[in-house]
């Protein structure tokens, strides 16, 4: 009764101020305007992440917080109510609820507006629209409420007009665009960013929507709000006690749960976790700093036959992997090197249930078992326990999972680095890590609801199968559909692009058919599953790293910046994509990962293939120009004259025969990729010289 009375009373006061209802209405109209603008741009994600409405909401509620406290903190009013039992407490809580309900109302209104404007027959994915609601709650609603509480607390502490100045300072350092104040915009290679620490809004305001990961809705961001609200409540309680608003007993009863919540949220915040960041440069920086010279030690003398994988994808990836391995060498071994992505930190390794010593360095692990040497053909059970992942290319948490077969997220016999920096332009190149033989997998995953994988499902949370393509796991803002025997898995924001995907299938079928005929790749066919995922970022440089054409499935990579604002799979795009497909296949079949050699082939042959398929070659020719510019002597073999091979390639490019995808040059070039020799550059040079002289 008392509470409702206070609620209604303050509602009347706020409505009669006029300025507050007008402000809120103004914000709503402004929101409508930004949504309509987003509709015109056909980008329903941009209107959320980069919408200045959050700035308006935060400042508005900050000053409402100051105002509703100030009207009660005047001595003449404060004293009257102070001597009424619990009056100030009822009034304060009623004000909080009133403001909170106004925020809930605005949040719901904005969401309804969003649905009204963006929900269409072509774009109606429930998971996406639920994430929009969470986004509006987390980054529009809750920060507004926190700002209100801050304003409230400030005006309890600071009398006079100084409170407005302090409020403005607090506002400028807590808004999502506070990097302007701290001058920390851009990719700063630091684990701690003061702007991110203090920001109450969207943490990745400078990055575009990631259509696999979705919005930054990780639990850690909710935890931050809980932590701040708990801290503010503690400060309120102490202030009220000092002002005799609450008794000692009331303080104790309310302070204890708040302190527990506060400590709990701090403990959660300091646990290891993975969340989307706006630092796309982390991976490229790491591999620039950790250059590893290739040698024979990358190949392990043991063979992994069977994997038992237990994954937990909660705040970050936790893995327990048991591997049945055989020593394929013809001698005893006392140590072995295996590959594992450096962001995955190994806690423990066991061999036949006994813990063994190991050393983790970069993307490799060295296992030591001196006292228990491994005899030839001997089978052993290796057990790896590890956790991690942090940068934006691979994910393993509740919100998204992206663990593709080409990346060493499972311990593998191949201990080459996961990435290489190539050419003079420092492109980020993914080094293939998919297995070269069939292996048996049993997979158990805890924490992810809808998981896409190339293994077959065997009960809830269990998958198994035999694959020569390794294991790929995907989860996140993904939809799937089966059309004409092909399963398409794609981001739900790309729904409209996959309405009639038969042109994709036809394109792949044409490319596969031509390559199969020309290059004698017998396993090549239209895969039964196509994973269309944004697995490249701005640090990639060239778009050749994300696509992977396995025997059973195709990972069709695209850049996280790409957005389907127009029909995406037009002939122009497909023409540009052909070399990527070819490169993806060469990465699969090649016995030697030589970026320069393979990429040149992919583009030259892709150009010829496009010509056959009547696809435009403008993009490919530009890409070839860029590649020529980026090739330095170090990109080529030591015993080849860079100038000469470039000249031969250029001459070949100008010849009519270069557009013939059946040309023997491509067959022989491809043969050099599949069966590389130390003289392959010279052989290619001679081949081109011979053809050019005709």
């Amino acid at each position, binding site marked *: 009764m008392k509470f409702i*009375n206070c609620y209604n009373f303050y509602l009347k*006061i706020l409505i009669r101020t006029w300025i507050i209802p007008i402000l809120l209405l103004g914000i709503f109209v402004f929101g409508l305007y930004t949504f309509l603008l987003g509709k015109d741009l056909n980008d329903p994600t941009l209107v959320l992440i980069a919408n200045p409405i959050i700035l308006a909401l935060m400042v508005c509620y900050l000053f409402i917080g100051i105002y509703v406290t100030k009207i009660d903190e005047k001595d003449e009013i404060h*004293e*009257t109510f102070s*001597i*009424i039992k619990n009056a100030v407490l009822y009034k304060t809580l009623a004000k909080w609820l009133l403001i909170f309900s106004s925020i809930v109302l605005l949040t719901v209104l904005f969401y309804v507006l969003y649905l009204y404007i963006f929900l269409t027959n072509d774009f109606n994915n429930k998971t996406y629209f639920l994430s929009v609601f969470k986004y509006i709650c987390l980054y529009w609603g809750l920060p507004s409420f926190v700002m209100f509480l801050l304003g409230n607390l400030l005006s309890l502490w600071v009398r006079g007009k100084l409170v407005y100045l302090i409020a403005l300072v607090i506002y400028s350092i807590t808004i999502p665009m506070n990097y302007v104040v701290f001058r920390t915009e851009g990719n700063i290679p630091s684990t701690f960013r003061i702007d991110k620490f203090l920001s109450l809004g969207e943490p990745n305001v400078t990055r575009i929507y990631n259509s696999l990961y979705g919005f930054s809705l990780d639990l850690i961001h909710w935890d931050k709000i809980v932590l701040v609200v708990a801290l503010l409540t503690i400060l309120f309680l102490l202030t009220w006690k000092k002002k005799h608003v609450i008794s000692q007993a009331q303080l104790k009863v309310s302070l204890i749960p708040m302190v527990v919540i506060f400590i709990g949220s701090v403990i959660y915040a300091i646990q290891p976790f993975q969340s989307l960041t706006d630092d796309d440069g982390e991976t490229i920086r790491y591999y620039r700093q950790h250059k590893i010279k290739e040698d024979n030690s990358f190949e392990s003398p043991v063979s992994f036959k069977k994997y038992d994988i237990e994954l937990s994808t909660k705040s970050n990836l936790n893995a327990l992997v048991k591997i049945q391995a055989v020593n394929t060498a013809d001698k005893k071994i006392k140590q072995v090197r295996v590959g594992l992505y450096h962001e995955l930190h190994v806690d423990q390794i066991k061999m036949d249930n006994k813990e063994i010593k190991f050393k983790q360095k970069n993307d490799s692990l060295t296992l030591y078992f001196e006292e228990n040497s491994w005899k030839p053909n001997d089978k052993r059970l290796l057990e790896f326990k590890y956790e991690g992942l942090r940068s934006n290319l691979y994910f393993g948490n509740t919100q998204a999972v992206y663990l593709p077969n080409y990346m060493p997220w499972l311990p593998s016999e191949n201990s080459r680095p996961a990435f290489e920096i190539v050419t003079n332009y420092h492109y980020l190149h993914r080094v293939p890590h998919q297995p070269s033989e069939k292996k048996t997998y049993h997979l158990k995953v805890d924490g992810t609801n809808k998981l896409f994988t190339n293994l077959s499902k065997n009960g809830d949370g269990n998958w198994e199968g035999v694959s020569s393509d390794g294991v790929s796991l995907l989860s996140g803002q993904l939809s799937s559909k089966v059309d004409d025997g092909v399963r398409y898995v794609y981001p739900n924001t790309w729904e409209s692009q996959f309405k009639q995907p038969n042109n994709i299938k036809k394109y792949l079928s044409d490319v596969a058919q031509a390559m199969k005929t020309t290059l004698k790749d017998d396993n090549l066919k239209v895969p039964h599953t196509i994973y269309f995922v944004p697995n490249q970022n701005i640090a990639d440089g060239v778009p050749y790293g994300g696509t992977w054409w396995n025997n059973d499935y195709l990972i069709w990579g695209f850049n996280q910046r790409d957005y389907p604002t127009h029909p995406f799979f037009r002939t122009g795009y497909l023409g540009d994509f052909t070399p990527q497909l070819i490169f993806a296949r060469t990465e699969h079949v090649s016995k030697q990962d030589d970026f320069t050699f393979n990429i040149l082939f992919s583009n030259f042959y892709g150009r010829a293939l496009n010509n056959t398929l009547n696809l435009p070659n403008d993009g490919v020719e530009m890409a070839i120009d860029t590649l020529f510019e980026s090739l330095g002597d170090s990109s080529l073999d030591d015993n080849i004259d860079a100038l000469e091979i470039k000249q031969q390639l250029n001459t070949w490019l100008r010849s009519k025969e270069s557009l013939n995808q059946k040309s023997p040059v491509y067959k022989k070039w491809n043969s050099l990729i599949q069966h590389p020799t130390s003289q392959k550059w010279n052989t290619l040079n001679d081949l081109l010289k011979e053809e050019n002289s005709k």
Partner: protein
Amino acid sequence: MERISLKEVNKSYQNKQILKKLTFDIQGSFGLLGPNGAGKTTLMRILTTLVPADSGEITMNDELSWNNQHVVRSYIGYLPQHFSLYKNVTVVECLLHLAVLKGIKKSKAKEEIDSLLQEVNLQEHKKKKIKQLSGGMLRRVGIAQALLGNPRLLIVDEPTVGLDIEERVRFRNLLRKLGVNRTILISTHIVEDIEMTCDYIGILKQGEIIFTGKKEELKALVAGKIKEELLTMDEADAIQDQVISLKQQEDKCLVRYFVENQEKQQATVSPTIEDAYLYLTRKGE
């Protein structure tokens, strides 16, 4: 009627003792007089439970201790010195808000508010917003809110400050009426307020209570010690320490003053509260 007893009540702020071992009883309509800085407001804030005393004891009828803050609050109606309410809310809305917070049921509160508005003569203005009221009306709203829930002790701080003469008279009459059936404590530095509204008086000087008792007892303290006569300005200047009031009358002044000399006592006038108050507060200066 309630009796509030103070025993050795002390209060200090920033190492300065504001109230010094106050021991006295408050009953009936009680006026607390004292010059500015005497500690009246501090004492009122202690009695309203807004601030706690450093030491000492306050009880109501020797039963209810002021340590029991929440219960005491339910017995008190308080009109602060600078009273105001929310500008954009009507008189009735404000009073209803306060009544419900005081624990009065909404239906009963409406009746009570009607009756109180009748009592403070604000029926016609009940739908006016607070910002549309005059100073006097606002004080009457203050009294109405203090009376909500029929408190056993009504505390009024500087009730007539800022009111015009007409409003002041009306307000004093109202306080007089309210003091008939309840204990009412009025704190003021305006002697006239007390003279017209209170039966009991307490005088506070530099944190100490220097008198408590009935009005007549206070007046009796200066009986035979007040004289009034026409004097020149020079003559008046010569006794300026004894002067109570001075009125210009053509080339002379009608001077009211204390008489220290016993021989002159035959020509004295009957004393007022103001005379006694000034006598006590100047004593020892």
